[in-house]
């Protein structure tokens, strides 16, 4: 086979985030902390969010996993930083629609996240891509309660 099929999934921007993750690390313990894993494959994420007055001021992640899960985490932190909590949740919704191959709103500039669109054609890998977003949703919802 050629690499063409693979290039649908592994776009260079994805590999760039995988090899040079943005917002890698951990915020101090006064912030929202979420640990999630994907028990079927062992992927793991530790996400910390600094949320003040309904605004995601900062986000950092740590973890272990494949290129899709780690690049998705990197892109997610990049796009939600500085966003309102409601916007972050809507972005998570948009991302989940993107993974299901459904139409989604073009209200937001998704930036690098758009590169993950190809994952929807690889059903076995969707869970890798959504892990970080699920962690973010859980963290934001816990904070807003």
């Amino acid at each position: 086979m050629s690499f063409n099929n693979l290039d649908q999934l592994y776009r260079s921007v994805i590999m760039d985030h995988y090899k040079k993750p943005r917002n890698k690390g951990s915020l101090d313990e006064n912030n929202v902390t979420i640990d999630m894993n994907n028990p079927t494959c062992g992927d793991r994420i530790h996400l910390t969010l600094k949320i003040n007055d309904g605004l995601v001021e900062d986000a950092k992640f740590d973890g272990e996993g494949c290129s899709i899960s780690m690049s998705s985490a990197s892109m997610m932190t990049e796009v939600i930083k500085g966003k309102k909590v409601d916007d972050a949740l809507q972005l998570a919704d948009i991302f989940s629609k993107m993974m299901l191959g459904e139409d989604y709103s073009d209200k937001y500039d998704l930036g690098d996240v758009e590169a993950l669109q190809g994952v929807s054609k690889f059903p076995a890998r969707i869970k890798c891509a959504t892990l970080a977003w699920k962690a973010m949703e859980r963290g934001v919802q816990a904070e807003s309660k």
Partner: protein
Amino acid sequence: MNDIRKYFPVLNQEVNGHPLVYLDSAATSQKPTQVLEVLKKYYEFDNSNVHRGVHTLGNRATDSYEGAREKIRKFINANSTEEIIYTRGTTTSINTVAAAYGRANVNEGDEIVITKMEHHSNFIPWQQLAKQQKAVLKFIELEEDGTISLETVRKTITPKTKIVAVTMASNVLGTINPVKEITEIAHENGAITVIDAAQGAPHMPIDVQDIDCDFLAFSGHKMCGPTGIGVLYGKKAHLENMEPIEFGGEMIDFVDLYDSTWKELPWKFEGGTPNIAGAIGLGAAIDFLNEIGLENIAKHEHELVEYAIAEMEKVGGISIYGPLDPSKRCGLITFNLDGVHPHDLATVLDMNGIAIRAGHHCAQPLMKWLQCTATARASFYMYNSKEDVDAFVAGLRMAKEYFNDVF
């Protein structure tokens, strides 16, 4: 062995534009037409409940169901069919021993000994039993190459040990364990052994009387049989003293308002309508394995593993886990390719029609021991060929090139 492929219709297909190369038989094996036809025939002509009808179909179903039990008895050389209990699979078999034997025989301060290479199915039942009974869970530590030394076994098992549970062959390291010798040491200390033969039964001859193990468990689906059927072998003396853990139809003798009595062995452990088709299918799978010959299967797998390890080493940047000596391992190879996460590798191979497993292989404590969160695994069976290995190794080279050079 090259002839065998024709019995496996599933292998005759393309996946993502490439001929299917199925290297995930340690997760579940493919099924030969001999088994598929028996299942079809059962449902088309004999389908009926067992042990209750006076009618002809009921008799046919019962005869086939019990006939399969005799095939299983012979297959592992058990003393009697009373010692062969049908279960859902290895997990249910081991849980049955933990619940029915464990709770009655393991008390506070007693020891349960397992190894660090156990699959979760031969790990968590003991971990939870130890917790419930306030017993001590102990581990036989592994040697550096992923084998077990009898010296360590002798040091770990003590007169306080009540149960020793160990796998016949590791689903990750591929290590074949000296279960007969371990059983001897356990017995010297007054403990019983529970052998997880999920990766053993499909690949090597088993003689429970020679091993002298007290319990042994395996699954049908890994040995050419259907899913949802498995076996628990237990020595009659133990099974007779154990109380059933599932109550209901099929397993009772007399039912009174305030108490009941149980059927004799093995049926007292088979509450509810059993997986009749599954049992009959497993019987057909055993006929098939006998026809091919387990020695021939084991020899073929050893040849493939030896060839694959040599070819994989030529690729460079591949770490192989477990003993490198092919004679010490069963037909699977767990490994990592530098710079490529196992999921990414599995996707690249899948795009080439090659099915491998990636992840923790239901052995998280072993992953910790190996100091990795995930690994890739290629596992072979009788229907795999050197050409399959070549396709697999070509896929590895492609993944290496793609992830290390393209980006």
